[in-house]
């Protein structure tokens, strides 16, 4: 008997250990690990979503924090600037004169307008402000940096027309410049093949035409640039390339001849070949520089991407949050104290509790409708005002604060109350002198979380008109204002690519505030909350 047990290596063929049973067990274990991996997959999927969302926004936001500025030789002499009447001067002319002085070869109305388009249309205002606040003194010619137009800025950041490639070409056999047109003769016809690949239109006799729908061919030579629009095979195995001169070519300048092919057709991008050449020239002259985008941090709203800033929205958010905090914190805490410490168990208090729980689940947009119908149309409070926005958000965060405060009050053990009552404190004194201070960390945590929710809330504020386009920095609780999330919503709607980056940057700032608030809440919870 003992022998068989000792030699028990031989498997017994009963119903728990036979082949089928082991198969079943394997299946069950496989199901087990499948299930576990499914769960881990779900968590990983959420992590992936979070990472995707944050990385998209961070990468988009990065370029918006810096902006390119163009240093211009501004003529601020007495004939242009009257120091006694700084608002009355024509700053537009001063700036466009300075710009055009950098491009002496430019003629023609359209080209001049293109040159003026390199600088932000908000530059005259900035120049006036600089003169008014004394950071610039009138008189003589002054070198001063002003923000560039958003498309030029994007190009310098490498976000527009970035798909360009440069190759060195053999020196052309001949270069003929006539007015604004140039004709180049090359001995090999590799240019033809390249143009054909790039989508040039075929014309009679093997000629090719590069329209705005095809890639751009720009040839740099002799210190200037020529854009190739027409290519024709030469009689003796070469190529004749023709096109407008973008930057003046001097015959005697040496250096390699470079061909630059920008794959995005000119018609599909926001910056023309001419502007690209100009911007490159300015950059080579050391006139452009990348600096912190102060306009973004401290400017108000604007339709011009390079002038738009978030300061107005930040101030609006701060004012709104102040109103929200001033209303929802005392009311919420008082309501929680009453319900938790004083309320008799009757129908009224039961009804209040049901109400609070339901309000916590009401969609935020319904609070906006309430604000519109009651605060705006009934009480005639001003539209777009932080006061009204704060009131609506206060009603919205009230349930959160009440629920959190009640939980914090409930966590204070009854022994504290009994001891206070025992030494003769009244019920009110017990609560305000002993229970409330002990519950305060929990209450503050709940309040901060509620305020963070309110800070990110958009929909109810759209209802009460905080979506209006407001250029000025709001000055008070009743002046028209917008808030950060609404600003994000508005910018997200603008088609300019520069606004997408501004939107992402504004989101980063909003998220920064939210993370800060939540971090404070976590610290409060960790440091001060007592477990009884």
């Amino acid at each position, binding site marked *: 008997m003992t022998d068989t047990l000792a030699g028990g290596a031989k498997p017994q063929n009963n119903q728990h250990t036979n082949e089928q049973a082991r198969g079943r067990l394997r299946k069950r*274990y496989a*199901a087990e690990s499948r*299930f*576990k991996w*499914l*769960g881990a*997959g*779900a968590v990983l999927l*959420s*992590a992936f*979503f*979070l990472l*995707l*969302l944050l990385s*998209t926004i961070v990468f988009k936001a990065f370029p918006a924090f810096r902006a390119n500025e163009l240093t211009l030789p501004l003529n601020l002499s007495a004939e242009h600037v009257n120091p006694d009447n700084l608002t009355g001067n024509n700053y537009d002319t001063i700036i466009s004169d300075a710009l055009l002085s950098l491009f002496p070869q430019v003629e023609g109305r359209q080209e001049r307008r293109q040159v003026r388009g390199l600088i932000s249309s908000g530059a005259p205002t900035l120049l006036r402000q600089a003169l008014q606040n004394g950071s610039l003194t009138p008189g003589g010619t002054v070198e001063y940096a002003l923000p560039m137009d958003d498309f030029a800025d994007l190009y310098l950041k490498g976000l527009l027309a970035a798909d360009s490639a440069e190759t060195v070409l053999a020196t052309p056999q001949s270069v003929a410049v006539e007015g604004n047109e140039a004709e180049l003769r090359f001995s090999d016809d590799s240019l033809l093949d390249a143009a054909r690949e790039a989508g040039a239109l075929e014309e009679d006799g093997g000629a090719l035409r590069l329209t705005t729908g095809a890639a751009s061919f720009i040839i740099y030579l002799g210190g200037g640039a020529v854009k190739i629009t027409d290519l024709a095979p030469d009689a003796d195995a070469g190529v004749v390339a023709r096109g407008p001169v973008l930057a003046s070519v001097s015959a005697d300048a040496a250096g390699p001849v470079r061909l630059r092919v920008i794959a995005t057709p000119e018609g599909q991008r926001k910056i023309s070949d001419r502007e690209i050449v100009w911007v490159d020239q300015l950059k080579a002259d050391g006139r452009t520089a990348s600096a912190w985008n102060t306009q973004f941090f401290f400017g108000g709203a604007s339709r011009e991407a390079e002038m738009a800033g978030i300061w107005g929205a930040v101030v609006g958010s701060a004012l709104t949050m102040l109103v929200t905090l001033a209303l929802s914190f*005392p009311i919420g805490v*008082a*309501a929680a*104290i*009453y319900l938790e410490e*004083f*309320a008799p168990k009757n129908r009224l208090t039961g009804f209040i509790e049901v*109400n*609070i*729980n*339901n309000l916590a*689940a*009401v*969609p*935020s*947009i*319904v*609070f*906006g*409708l*309430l604000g*519109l*119908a*009651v605060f705006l149309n009934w*009480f*005639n*409070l*001003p539209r777009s005002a932080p006061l009204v926005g704060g009131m609506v958000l206060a*009603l919205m965060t*009230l349930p959160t604060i009440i629920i959190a405060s009640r939980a914090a009050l409930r966590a204070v053990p009854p022994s504290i109350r009994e001891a206070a009552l025992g030494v003769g404190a*009244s019920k*009110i004194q017990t609560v305000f002198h002993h229970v409330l201070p002990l519950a305060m960390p929990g209450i503050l945590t709940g309040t901060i979380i509620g305020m963070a929710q309110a800070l*990110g809330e*958009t*929909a109810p504020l*759209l*209802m009460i008109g905080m979506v*209006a386009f407001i250029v000025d920095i709001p000055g008070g609780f009743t*002046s*028209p204002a917008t808030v950060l*999330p609404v600003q994000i*919503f508005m910018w*997200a709607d603008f088609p300019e690519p520069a606004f997408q980056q501004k939107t992402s940057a504004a989101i980063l700032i909003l*998220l920064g505030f*939210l993370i800060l608030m939540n971090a404070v809440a976590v610290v409060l919870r960790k440091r001060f909350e007592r477990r009884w």
Partner: protein
Amino acid sequence: MITYVVIALLVLFAVAYYFGRARALSSVEGNTAALHSLPSQHGLFLALLSAGPALLILLFWGVATPGVEASIVEGRFATQLADMNLPEKQAFLRDARALAFGGIAGFPNEAKEAAAEHFAALRGQSEWIVSGLVTLLAALGFFWGIRRITPQFRARHVVERVLRLFLILCSVVAILTTLGIVLSLIFESLRFFQQVPFYKFLFGTHWSPQSAFTGAGQEAGAVNPDIFGAVPLFVGTMLITFIAMLVAAPVGLMSAIYLSDYASKQVRSVAKPMLEILAGIPTVVYGFFAALTVAPFFRDFGQVLGLSVASESALAAGIVMGIMIIPFVSSLSDDVINAVPQSLRDGSAGLGATKSETIRKVVLPAALPGIVSALMLAISRAIGETMIVVMAAGLAANLTINPLEAVTTVTVQIVTLLVGDQEFDSAKTLAAFALGLVLFCVTLALNIIALRVVKKYREQYD
């Protein structure tokens, strides 16, 4: 000026507190044991008595003045306003007010400027009157109160009664809010249903209230009720909610299960804050993400497969909304799953079940009522979500259940109807309130059912 009055009252509050305290102390020559109430309570009594009624009067004045002013001005300018319809009248008053008190006036003209002057004059007069009244009340309260302070005076009772009243009033705010929501929604919706029969609203399949030519923006009487059929919106909302739940329910539930039953402590300490971050991201950020990244991705992906996917497809909005709801589902189900007693798990393990069998056959059935209620709350959340769909879903009503097409939702329509220039009385803006009422009722019903489910089917284990 009113700002200064308020500041003066706050200063008075502090001063009165100090005087009351000092008076109480001097009445017993510093022997506090002889006082019925603490000196600070006497101080509070005097402060409340002198500043309290005045502040209440100010509050009442602030609430009532705009309406009173408007009716006075309306009476004065009755001749100019006679041939205007209601929206024009409101625009007139709004502009006049903006001219008088600062703000953005639409089209200023002479009549409006005259009305604005009138507004300013009225405001000036009423400010003087109310300031005088406030001063009088504050002085009366202060001097009457200071005479009442004696050692026997029961200041504590008065102060505590006022405080208790304040506490009760604060908790009544919740009721008032609900009442305000319900009344304003019902009141405005009734006005809407006077112009558009409710069956046409609830069962009509054509929604285009923005088309002014068919009479949406006109005055009462000229409204074409056939363009207010909200069925496409309801279907669109349900479609997007359905897609969102397809993402959020399995992912949220599985992460809750994994985190409560499988994950090690380290994994949990990373995963839980991660879900909290996901929950804390504002919805406008999700909307931006949906419109900028997810929707173009699906459009391009569809092109590769040869499908035509709208750039504002229901799929993109629904999936991003699902991502937003994952942490909501997961944290609610986590609570429910953790509430299932360990003894059930131990019993199941003792019978030889694997962990997943325990979860599927024991824990989940036990937690089912809670999970169902969590899912219902999530659905209610998805239905009421606004910013994602405003930014990523379509604007035009489209009666379809194809997730690749653009659909619009109830919340999107509320926003588009109410943002921008609006006359408050047109059927167009009132329609937004009718939609809001539907939204409120549906989410309320879902919440109540969710609570009922938990109450009715919850098993008592301990």
